[in-house]
């Protein structure tokens, strides 16, 4: 049956069941509900198993896409997850958060007809199936080498390094500044998109393999990189992310009710403020919310505000829809959840009341001019187009920069003009002996899978170093 449908050209992509928008926009449960085995096999059967698979060229970590899909089609889910793990240690995460439309799915041959294989959904299915039905069996570990590696930061990049090196027999300790591991996966990306349980299980898996996770350690304050070497660590991986919130630098930005997306999402996710007062950390609950920016972070903030009871949530962005950097799925979900888009709008000033609380913004209407360095058409203000937009909560999601706390307290690293660490893209080696870096602290805020890819390269290079020398 499945065989037959695969040959017909017009078989539509198998949709993943989702919570209805009007229900989910008020709860924090995950939005897509996952494939059943039948749905997964139905979707897997659509893959035509290309000899030269375009999809793989789009995956930064070379997942054997036709291979794992074939195994799903054949119903050998256990073999499918093993196949995935060979290239990607966090498939449950990537299946959910990769921008598939510009990566693997964007290059699938079927994409031309607008119906690429749902690679992300299948990846998620295989990982979830293993979590629910797997044996929890650990992969084999090589004989202990007695070499100690320190990983700074427990985001996807650091976790990848830890996972790769522990199975090669090294001792790995991950140091994390926050009280919980996972990086952006835990403090940034909301529960309704990536249940935290999944991240904690992945970390738990690494711990069972022998990785030591030391939370509440701010490297650069609690301990320095050089002190880690003195303590006997032979290699250090820096994966501290791009944890510095950018602001708009316009008047009134310090009014009460204006938060960086980092603060807003950290309160909601890491501190579980959406469950206040069961959890003690409060979060401002706006009725009329504006979110500045249009990336994933902005979509996450807007959808969180809606779930916290907002009556109106508006994404305010100075460019047009075509330039919005968020994943397609996030934009679509946000629209379904009644988030409004105020495009070509640039705030110039926040307005406050006598109690210092934000009540609105002054904005300018923009139009698109000539392309800028990024190749995107530059927004220019329309003369005399000033107008006011009311709001009682504003969330700034216009990007992140390099947090200087670690880099400025570590001698010998070289930084670029924006403060990111300079590292060899092929190996992750920095200018400081025995120190590697990767993920957002090298590239600026990018994606989970790129951070993991950088981690994998660095892990290979660290292993070579511990075996053969610098």
């Amino acid at each position, binding site marked *: 049956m499945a065989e037959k449908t695969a040959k017909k050209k017009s078989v539509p992509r198998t949709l993943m069941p989702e919570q209805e928008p009007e229900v989910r926009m008020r709860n924090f449960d995950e939005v897509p509900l996952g494939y059943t085995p039948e749905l997964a096999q139905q979707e897997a059967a659509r893959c035509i198993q290309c000899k030269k698979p375009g999809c793989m060229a789009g995956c930064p970590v070379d997942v054997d896409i036709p291979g794992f899909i074939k195994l799903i089609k054949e119903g050998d889910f256990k073999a499918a997850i093993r196949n995935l793990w060979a290239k990607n240690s966090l498939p449950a995460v990537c299946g959910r958060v990769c921008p598939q439309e510009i990566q693997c799915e964007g290059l699938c041959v079927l994409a031309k007809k607008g119906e690429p294989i749902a690679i992300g959904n299948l990846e998620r299915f295989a990982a979830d199936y293993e979590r629910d039905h797997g044996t929890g069996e650990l992969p084999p570990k090589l004989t202990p080498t007695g070499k100690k590696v320190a990983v700074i930061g427990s985001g996807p990049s650091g976790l990848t390094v830890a996972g790769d090196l522990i199975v090669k027999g090294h001792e790995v300790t991950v140091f994390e*500044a*926050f*009280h919980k591991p996972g990086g952006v996966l835990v403090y940034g990306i909301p529960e309704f998109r990536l249940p935290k349980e999944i991240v904690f299980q992945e970390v738990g898996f690494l711990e069972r393999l022998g990785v030591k996770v030391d*939370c*509440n*350690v*701010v490297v650069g*304050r*609690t*301990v320095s990189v050089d002190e880690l070497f003195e303590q006997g660590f032979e290699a250090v991986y820096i994966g501290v992310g791009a*944890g*510095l*919130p950018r*602001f708009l*630098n316009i008047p009134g*930005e*310090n*009014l*009460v*009710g204006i*938060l*960086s997306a*980092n*603060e807003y999402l*950290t*309160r909601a996710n890491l*501190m*579980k403020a959406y469950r*206040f*007062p*069961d*959890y*003690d*950390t*409060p979060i*401002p609950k706006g009725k009329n919310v504006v979110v500045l920016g249009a990336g994933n972070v902005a979509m996450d903030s807007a959808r969180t505000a809606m779930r916290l009871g907002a009556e109106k949530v508006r994404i305010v962005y100075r460019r047009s829809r075509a330039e919005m950097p968020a994943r397609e799925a996030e934009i679509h979900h946000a629209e379904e959840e009644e988030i409004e888009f105020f495009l070509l709008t640039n705030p110039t000033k926040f307005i406050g009341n006598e*109690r*210092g*609380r934000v009540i609105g913004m002054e904005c300018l209407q923009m139009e698109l001019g000539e392309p800028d360095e990024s190749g995107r058409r530059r927004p220019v203000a329309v003369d005399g187009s000033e107008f006011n937009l009311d709001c009682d909560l504003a969330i700034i999601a216009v990007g992140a920069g390099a*947090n*200087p*706390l670690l880099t400025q307290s570590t001698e010998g690293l070289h930084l670029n003009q924006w403060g990111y660490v300079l590292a060899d893209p092929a190996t992750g080696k920095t200018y400081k002996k025995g120190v590697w870096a990767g993920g957002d602290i090298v590239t600026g805020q990018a994606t989970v899978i790129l951070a993991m890819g950088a981690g994998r390269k660095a892990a290979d290079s660290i292993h070579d170093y511990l075996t053969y020398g610098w």
Partner: protein
Amino acid sequence: MFKIVKREEMAEGTVILNEIEAPLIAEKAKPGQFVILKATETGERIPLTMAMTDPVKGTITIIYMVVGKGTAVFRDLVVGDTYQDVIGPLGKPTHLEKVGKVVCVGGGTGIAVLHPITRALKEVGNHVIAIIGARSKDLLILEDHMQAASHELHVCTDDGSYGRKGFVTEALRDVLENEKIQLVVAIGPVPMMKFLSQLTKEYNVKTIVSLNPIMVDGTGMCGGCRVTVGGLTKFACVDGPEFDGHQVDYDELMLRLQAYCEDEKKCYEDYCVLSA
């Protein structure tokens, strides 16, 4: 887990001292730095200055005023209980230098924050005059410690129940009238720091204050702690917490401290009812 090895009530039910096992932090901490603590899984992250540290025993000491649910949960911990998370040392240490004559002014629990700084300023060779104040006698903390950490100590209470009656600003004015002072360090409630900075400005004396905005991470990652200093936005957790008192926008800080007032109040009242 971070175990409480000593607990004292410095003022009954309202000002509490905890000495906590945290060897890594104790070894690193310098005067002026703080930690962030979280007592339980569901708790809030609360910033508190280290009033004392003992690198040999591997302990740090915090002294805090019970003002809301977070600090009330801390108050209810006993010796042997643990804090789930303690993070630090955070913030820039105090800049310590011999400048001559220094006045250290502390109000309320600000005295706890001021004490290690006072001692360190004396140790680097300054002549240190300390002025401490509280609303009333039973709320005055660390008098003995401050006596030992300074060369000269003046005590004030708002209600006159002990020491000189009146605010610390008045005592400071007398000192400034009579002596040539190179530096004032002032730590206490925001209005106290505001008026005190106005006073020292009149006398053109350099003034350092320690700010206490609402914080989340304490590592420069959220921007919740932003304060305006000299017209520029600074993150108190990494750029501070100490700043030039003449440059700080205190009115903005006071408004920002009220951001969660209503939620906090509700949370505290619920907790008081439950634990009553």
